[in-house]
């Protein structure tokens, strides 16, 4: 194979190459359909031609988007320059909406009115669509049918080519544009069927009716593009389904004590998820939780947000310090330590402070202040005694809870 063909083949396998083919296809379609539609006074075919014109703009946008996506993120633009895509999508959506209403819907409605109410002459005089269509039974309709059917087949073939190259090169915008090309092919097939029906049945209003239908499809496409662009510009949430799925994945991860927040939004072509969870584990363990969650969330976003590039931020923060202080009333003497229930014979309080792990120390009781004062100063929430809890419960006046333990031996209770 000659170097030229080899390079051409290589180029056609890239995102730039496939979009160049797409633009060439649309150029041919625009010329054929707008030209034929204008001559035949067919708003349906002309409208589809204008639709293809907006597709050229969109294809150009995809090319620019691919180029911009390759610009590395930096400190000034941490998401790179992907946000430009949303602005251009907004403009294309508006252009498509204008074309749908002005170039297709209005003439089609008048055409329907013309077929149904021939007396509306002054309105028909304002627009070219007032001229009756020449797609009557005969060679013109057959030619229109061939044009639309051929266009549909080319669209389907090119869409598969786009999707294949986009998938292989990892450019979701190319894949998305390929899907839109496939949708265009279906519209073209519908139009071809409509022309054939008109040719077979001989009713001139079928073409205008299909023109209205085509306008509806164009408006819907424009609405989708505008909505998508708006979502990206306004950082709209990715939706409850995504948030709930991410939260469930986080809660199911070993070591995660709780999910603090899940925030998802769009930024340019990125689907962004910021997840914050709590953990009580050490740094090595939480680092692994972070990496695992990031991979899970990225996978989830890729699955749910087709065409978007996932961007995931996971933070593992220490769980709130649940400092719990509890104490055991004890007597320490020559025989050892034992848990008691009478503060008159107690000599110490075994103070336990739990912040993750438990620190234990013996605090001697002093005669210059009461047991209650001592426990309150140390923020003790529960005092454990061995025996009857009622006398001390009354003495402490409910300010510190008193509970019983099974044994007077601290070792049995697990107290070091």
């Amino acid at each position, binding site marked *: 194979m000659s170097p030229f063909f080899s390079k051409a083949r290589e180029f056609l396998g890239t995102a730039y190459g496939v979009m160049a083919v797409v633009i060439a296809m649309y150029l041919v379609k625009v010329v054929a359909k707008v030209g034929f539609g204008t001559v035949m006074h067919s708003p349906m075919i002309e409208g589809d031609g204008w639709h293809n014109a907006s597709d050229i703009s969109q294809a150009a946008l995809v090319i620019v988007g691919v180029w911009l996506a390759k610009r590395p993120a930096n400190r000034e633009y941490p998401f790179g320059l992907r946000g430009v895509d949303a602005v251009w999508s907004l403009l294309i959506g508006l252009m498509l909406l204008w074309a749908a209403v002005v170039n297709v819907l209005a003439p089609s409605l008048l055409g329907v009115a013309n077929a149904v109410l021939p007396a509306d002459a002054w309105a028909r005089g304002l627009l070219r669509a007032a001229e009756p269509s020449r797609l009557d039974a005969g060679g013109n309709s057959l030619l229109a049918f061939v044009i639309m059917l051929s266009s549909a087949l080319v669209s389907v073939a090119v869409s598969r080519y786009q999707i294949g190259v986009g998938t292989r090169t990892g450019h979701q915008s190319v894949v998305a544009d390929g899907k839109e090309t496939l949708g265009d092919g279906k519209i073209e097939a519908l139009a071809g069927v409509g022309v054939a029906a008109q040719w077979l049945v001989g009713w001139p209003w079928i073409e205008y009716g299909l023109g209205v239908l085509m306008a509806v499809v164009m408006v819907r496409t424009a609405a989708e593009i505008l909505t998508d662009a708006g979502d990206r510009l306004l950082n709209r949430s990715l939706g409850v389904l995504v948030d709930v799925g991410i939260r469930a994945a986080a809660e199911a991860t070993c070591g995660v004590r709780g999910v603090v927040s899940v925030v998802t939004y769009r930024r340019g072509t990125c689907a962004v998820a910021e997840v914050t969870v709590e953990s009580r*584990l*050490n740094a090595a363990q*939480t680092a692994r939780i972070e990496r*695992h969650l990031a991979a899970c969330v990225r996978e989830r976003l890729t699955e749910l947000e087709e065409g978007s590039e996932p961007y995931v931020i996971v933070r593992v923060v220490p769980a709130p310090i649940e400092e719990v202080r509890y104490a055991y009333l004890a007597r320490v003497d020559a025989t050892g330590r034992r848990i008691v229930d009478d503060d008159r014979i107690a000599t110490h309080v075994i103070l336990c402070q739990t912040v993750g792990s438990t620190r234990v120390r013996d605090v001697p009781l002093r005669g210059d202040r009461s047991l209650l004062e001592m426990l309150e100063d140390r923020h003790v929430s529960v005092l454990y005694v061995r025996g009857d809890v009622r006398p001390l419960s009354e003495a402490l006046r409910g300010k510190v809870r008193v509970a019983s333990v099974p044994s007077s031996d601290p*070792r*049995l209770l697990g107290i070091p």
Partner: protein
Amino acid sequence: MAQMPLVYVPYATTAEGRRAIEYAANLADSNAKLRVLLSVEPPTSAERGLVRDDVVGVARTAAPRLFGRARRDEHDAFGMSVGDARSFALCPNDILVGNVLRRDDANVLSPQDEFLPGEHGLMSAFIPIGSRASGRYAVEFGLPLLKRLGCMRAVFYHTTYRKPRIASSDPVDHMDPGAVELLADARASAARLGFAVESRVEAASQVVDGICMAALATRCELIVMARGLEQRGVGYADEVVAGSPVPVLVLGRFSEVSR
């Protein structure tokens, strides 16, 4: 008939002790017996009764099936023993639950920060195997024990270095012959015992990190390892215990294996 495993947990009223009791009760919920270790001379009958009430109270809320079995005194589902967790004699069919407990002569399970072995009990176990005897030991001894605990899925994991002279990017092609044989034997053993078997071979840059990340990725509830039989000092099992968010069962070295 295979005996029900015994799950031992030191009795403690500290926060960590309560978490370990809850985990042990959940682990024993349907498929094991719970034994609480009291680390003093035999307590009075009153003390025994109070400890029993305390632990069964935990089981009532955390492990209702264990509680039900204990109430019916079914197969001696719950009991107490006297002994220090660091030296109490344990059998191959026993498991000792607790963080920061290291024993070479007992099966020690570190629950990390988990209360539950899994949402539906212990269903999946992650078993790293190399090409050495410790991997074979983990398979031959660990699988029957896991089966008795109600585990239904076994994921075998192996990580290998990439050999420069092998062009393939598939880590399986870089495995040592001994590891290939061991993995095949492990899968066959697990299949015979009725496990759903999976295996995962990687070329992880670090063994311990690979084990921990793969256990998380495969959503296993327990990592099961054996210490290297020639190991001295800190080994992979100890590093995994220190660095894994997933609970870890380190198998003890026993001269005879209970099947």
